[in-house]
């Protein structure tokens, strides 16, 4: 048997083994998909009405700040393990049926729109692609694209002299990746890049935009694959099949695209967790000496409360988590909680995400099917023939009219010129790159002089690119233009933008290099964890949501396993 045949058989066997395996183990671990209604409604309101409610004076086992990718996953895992958990969420408890609309402008409330300041030489606009609000957080409006990180992402400093090494290896995360991929669940072709692996569901049918990427890539000998998307393809529990309406970024009214609102919150509620919405965290409180966290102060209905807890986890994402720690300064931590070594808020990362669109005489109608559907990771790794380290991934992106108009206008088109471009909308196929930009200490969150309506200083997010960043973005742009031309585009335009956020409170081997250890415990306060994307030391060229959920899944297991051994300091554990 030849090599390619053998590897194809291995791919087929791996896929069959996963897609045909019974779902009992998944359901026992997380029954969320089976706790959704069967009658066409998208959320069972009885779960919220009957939710266990704690008192502020109850010292719960765990209070979590933020109910997004990280916070909801931790809440579900620990409630499932028998812990009493309160999750504080600044936004509302969404009802997909009545709160979400199949409309771009009508979805503005899904984003975190409280004031923030952006600065640096390459400031990063916030909002729709990187900041969520309400139960589900930004998974409500993420595209559902969930590739894994590559093994090389965990040792970029050792391998290439750039970025940072993680205190864990890829192998430490693999079981978590597999668990989360089953729970979302993920649909896609067998994945040939990084650590090759199958997905539990078959790939979705491809829309016009995806066909263009497949066509262009094939012409150039570039490998491209369909998926991986966290969108049901076939039935999963009471989650229905995708209907390809294209409004993934506006909240999935179908319940086909995963958000933690439907993938982890129902099971958390069924296991006695309380998700307390409209609760804006003000500060993490510690005892007088700053040795341990005692709870979280928060504002709700205009009054300040303190929820007491034995363990505190902050999951507000890369801007709000550092902001909360900096706003939690006290006598022991005058420069911000856990900020003894000036690490809080630093090494914040975004991905360079240039979008290149090509014009085709055929009708593409990119607004149908999931916006990111087809991808290539052929350029993910460091290539010694390039003049830069690390790389990029290429995906389809399918902007709806308002987003597309803003992009066209950002290119300098306005007036009749803009209107003419827009009338041509259905003829354009758009590719987006995710370029790995390097973590830098100066890219960070600090507190601005400006205050929000709660009277809390708002975050100032400063961002500047380095030379390697600019080189990766240039290369990605050239490759996308090549692919579109090879697919037959008569004109191409590229706009510069960013996507995603990670870092800001990174995990590291020691307190001088980061804020949390490999188990996501802060070095400074042993019963305080950070369980969101801010702990990632590097970001690869992959969309971060899956990896955020995987590191939290791993940390939750370690937390639950260690529960009976009492409070432990990471310093003590590192002793022989």
């Amino acid at each position, binding site marked *: 048997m030849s090599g390619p045949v053998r590897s194809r058989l291995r791919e087929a066997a791996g896929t069959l083994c996963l897609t045909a395996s019974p779902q009992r183990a998944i359901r026992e671990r997380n029954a969320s998909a089976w706790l959704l209604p069967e009658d066409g409604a998208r959320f069972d309101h009885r779960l919220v009405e009957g939710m266990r409610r704690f008192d502020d004076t109850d010292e719960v086992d765990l209070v979590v700040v933020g109910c997004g990718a990280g916070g909801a996953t931790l809440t579900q895992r620990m409630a499932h393990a028998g812990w009493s958990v309160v999750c504080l969420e600044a936004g509302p408890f969404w009802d997909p049926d009545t709160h979400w609309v199949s409309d771009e402008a009508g979805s503005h409330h899904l984003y975190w729109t409280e004031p923030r300041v952006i600065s640096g030489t390459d400031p990063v606009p916030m909002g729709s692609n990187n900041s969520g609000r309400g139960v589900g957080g930004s998974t409500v409006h993420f595209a559902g694209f969930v590739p894994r990180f590559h093994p090389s992402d965990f040792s970029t400093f050792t391998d290439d002299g750039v970025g940072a090494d993680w205190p864990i290896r890829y192998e430490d995360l693999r079981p978590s990746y597999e668990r989360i991929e089953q729970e979302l669940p993920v649909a896609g072709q067998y994945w040939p890049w990084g650590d090759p692996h199958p997905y539990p569901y078959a790939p979705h049918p491809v829309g016009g935009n995806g066909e263009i990427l497949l066509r262009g890539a094939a012409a150039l000998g570039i490998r491209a694959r369909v998926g991986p998307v966290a969108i049901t393809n076939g039935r999963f529990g009471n989650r229905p099949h995708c209907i390809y309406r294209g*409004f993934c970024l506006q909240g999935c009214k179908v319940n086909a695209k995963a958000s933690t609102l439907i993938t982890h919150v129902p099971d958390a509620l069924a296991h006695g967790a309380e998700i307390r919405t409209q609760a804006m965290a003000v500060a993490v409180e510690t005892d007088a000496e700053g040795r341990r966290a005692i709870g979280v102060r928060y504002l709700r209905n205009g009054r300040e409360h303190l929820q007491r807890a034995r363990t505190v986890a902050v999951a507000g994402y890369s801007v709000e988590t550092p902001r909360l720690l900096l706003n939690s300064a006290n006598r022991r931590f005058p420069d911000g909680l856990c900020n003894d070594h000036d690490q809080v808020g630093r090494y914040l990362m975004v991905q360079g995400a240039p979008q290149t669109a090509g014009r085709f005489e055929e009708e593409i109608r990119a607004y*149908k099917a999931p916006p990111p559907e087809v991808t290539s990771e052929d350029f993910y790794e460091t290539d010694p023939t390039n003049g830069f380290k690390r790389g990029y991934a290429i995906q389809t992106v399918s902007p709806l009219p308002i987003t597309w108009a803003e992009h066209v206008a950002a290119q300098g088109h306005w007036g009749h010129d803009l209107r003419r471009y827009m009338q041509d909308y259905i*003829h354009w196929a758009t590719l987006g790159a995710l370029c790995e930009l390097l973590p830098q200490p100066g890219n960070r969150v600090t507190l601005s002089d400006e205050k929000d309506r709660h009277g809390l200083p708002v975050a100032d997010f400063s961002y500047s690119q380095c030379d390697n960043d600019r080189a990766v973005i240039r290369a990605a742009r050239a490759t996308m233009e090549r692919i579109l031309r090879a697919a037959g585009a*008569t004109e191409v335009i590229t706009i510069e933008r960013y996507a995603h956020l990670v870092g800001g409170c990174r995990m590291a081997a020691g307190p001088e290099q980061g804020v949390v250890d490999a188990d996501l415990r802060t070095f400074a306060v042993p019963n305080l964890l950070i369980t969101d994307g801010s702990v990632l030391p590097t970001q690869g060229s992959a969309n971060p949501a899956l990896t955020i959920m995987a590191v939290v899944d791993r940390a939750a297991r370690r937390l639950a396993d260690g529960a009976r051994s009492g409070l432990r300091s990471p310093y003590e554990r590192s002793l022989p």
Partner: protein
Amino acid sequence: MRRLPTGRRVPSGETGARFPNFDALDQVDAWDPATAATVVGRLARQPDLRFFTPAEEATAGALLDRLLAQDGPPGEPKVPVLQMVDARLAEAQTDGWRYHDMPEDGDAWRATLAALDRDAADEYEADSFADLTCDRQKRLVRAVQDLHGKPWHGLPAAHVWSLWTRYACTAFYARPYAWNEIGFPGPAYPRGYARLGIGLREPFEEADADPTADPADRKGTG
């Protein structure tokens, strides 16, 4: 549902040459109630102006009309972008961020409208940007665009450009009028799409009447 009196074409400016018989609102019965209420509600009478002063109203109206080419004859109906932007600013519905070298959005709009009036006075001795001819207005707008990263009346021109175009595009392309012009069917729940792929259309999607019309090489013409 009774047909909504919206008309098929985008009022003013363009002619609807590409999708002459297409109306996204034909499908309103196929939309879920929450979405239909949002989109149809957007067609209702706009709230009265609350944010802009009369001088700002005149300048903002002219600026938005130039940016979006809503320059049909007086009295012709148009997308009420001025009212939509005013409502957004009155409610401080921002995108959740501002550049450190720009004021909050509301103040930034006031400052830049005043700056346009100053340019109108300096260049053409006019009392208001709104008093200029269309061509002169376009010339002043283009001058701001051409500054790119350089300062304009103390603000970075590129960030001013971003502010104006974001608010203008978000309002204009939220309307079924604009969707009709570009062949976009709008909401798609609970119906979804069954025909995915290049060149495939649902029965309610209309073919482009002029698929070879390529807008290339007309950049910056206003």
